[in-house]
């Protein structure tokens, strides 16, 4: 699992590459836990190369959501593969998180 951060003005884009499981979730958790992340207005999660997510990966996002909301930081997922979106859908998390098709919608959200 590789996480690449691309900051630009008030937006931080995190590109996820690989499989997010109980072994690799710590890499993402470390990135989302950085205090500086709350200085951005939006954090965009580019899921184009995210090929797998388990409950451990979902848990990392859930555990930071309140902190982001309290700081008025929007968390937006985009470019999600169908099989990964299906995992959010099965648990009903697609209704609680902002998931949009492309970077254009993510930037406009």
């Amino acid at each position, binding site marked *: 699992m590789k996480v690449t951060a691309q900051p630009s003005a008030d937006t931080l884009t995190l590109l996820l590459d690989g499989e997010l*499981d109980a072994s690799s979730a710590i890499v993402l958790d470390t990135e989302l836990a950085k205090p500086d992340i709350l200085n951005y207005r939006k954090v965009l999660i580019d899921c184009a190369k995210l090929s797998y997510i*388990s409950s451990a990966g979902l*848990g990392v996002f*859930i555990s930071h959501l*309140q902190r982001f909301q309290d700081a008025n930081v929007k968390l937006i997922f985009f470019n999600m593969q169908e099989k990964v979106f*299906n995992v959010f859908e099965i*648990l009903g998390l697609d209704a*609680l998180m902002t998931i949009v098709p492309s970077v254009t919608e993510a930037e406009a959200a």
Partner: protein
Amino acid sequence: MKSALRIACSRVHLQQVRDFVRNYLTSRQLSEVAINQVVLAVDEVVANFIIHANSEDETQFLDLTLAFDQHDLNVEIADNGDTIFLPGPTPNPDFHAYIQQGRKGGMGMALVNRLMDRVEFFTRGNHTVCHLSKHLA
């Protein structure tokens, strides 16, 4: 055709488990979503055995067996450790509460129950075994 894998109880082997399940299912005409659902269910149960039942003790090991009966996939995950691990009834996760609490866990078995047709944990001697099954047409 049956396929088997033995792994030590370390979460670094989860990738190997997923690849094993994917490779086994590749010969079937299944969608990526269907394959991923089975891979995820097995990954969740194996992660629970590794982390919660065996505290990541690498001297312990798990045995996985995959077999098709017509269109029904049967998965056995046998824990060779001596800790009996029988998850109780799984409540539906309350995500509003989880978000407020900043909670990371508590949804793995809920996922497994939604992904598979049948989920059973039982004891064999002093070991725990999990059986999963799913109809894959």
